[in-house]
């Protein structure tokens, strides 16, 4: 049983494209009154389905030409504390996301850099210097698209 209906999903779909739309214009688009739309948005926020906003910046125009995904395996599992690694890795400004995963790697990192030589600097001075770091695999991001998924 889900407490959400098709109108909620339509709202989520619209907001995941553009979060700056007003309840009034969203309501007109969905055939709802402004207060009814506002109540639904509030309900989605309170339940935590709407988990905030993000601004969409053109990284390349801002001088960040390279995005690399790193798969990181810890070298001495059990001996290094995961907390130490996690604290150190999340503090690196160039590391945008850190995910703990299960599979071939232990962590998946998204790293931005100005160019390939800047990436090399981040990799050598920051990533390879992390406590317990073992095998690292790098894949350079070429393209990316977000989809609205099951909405």
């Amino acid at each position, binding site marked *: 049983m*889900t407490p*959400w209906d098709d109108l909620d999903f339509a709202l*989520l779909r619209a*907001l*995941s494209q*553009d*979060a*700056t739309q007003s309840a009034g214009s969203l309501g007109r688009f969905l055939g709802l009154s402004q207060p009814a739309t506002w109540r639904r948005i509030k309900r989605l926020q309170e*339940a*935590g*389905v*709407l*988990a*905030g*906003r*993000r*601004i*969409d*910046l*053109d*990284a390349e*125009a*801002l001088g*960040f030409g390279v995005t690399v*995904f790193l*798969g990181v395996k810890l070298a001495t599992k059990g001996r290094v504390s995961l907390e130490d690694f*996690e604290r150190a*890795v*999340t503090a690196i*400004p*160039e*590391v*945008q*996301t*850190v*995910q*703990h*995963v*299960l*599979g*071939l*790697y232990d962590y*998946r990192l*998204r790293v*931005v850099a100005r160019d390939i030589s800047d990436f090399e600097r981040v990799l050598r001075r920051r990533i390879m210097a992390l406590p317990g770091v073992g095998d690292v*695999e*790098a*894949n*350079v*991001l*070429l*393209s*990316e*698209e*977000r*989809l*609205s*998924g*099951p*909405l």
Partner: protein
Amino acid sequence: MLDDLDRRILRFLQSDPAAPMAEVAERCQSQPATVARRLERLKAQGILRGQYAVIDWAVLGYAVEVSLRFTLDKTNAKAFDEFLTAAREIRQVIAIQTFLGRVDVRLSVIAKDMADYQKLYRNEILNLPHILELEALMHVATLKTAEALPL
């Protein structure tokens, strides 16, 4: 190009995208009208592309998130296009990324539970065209997701 004020504005908006203009101005030691003008310019330049809502899929009942990493059969010139077209049709795919490296394409998929994931994997993922190799990373936890640029 960008000056210090532009950077301060973008930095602050990355941490708090929904902040009202007056607060942005105050935190950036500027005036609301100036900030509004700067934001207009950043939009016109295509640097600030917009704002989108972040959806917490777990709250919507999708407790499982998996990264599927594919190596494609590049002897077929149409492999990428046909794979991507088919992947966009799968409803539980929330992101598609292409790479330069050992991995060609990564799909982020979500599922309600392991049974749902297995169904998705068998009926849809394994039917995607031109797969040479496929490996899965199951998300355990996300430790950092701001995706903020170190401006």
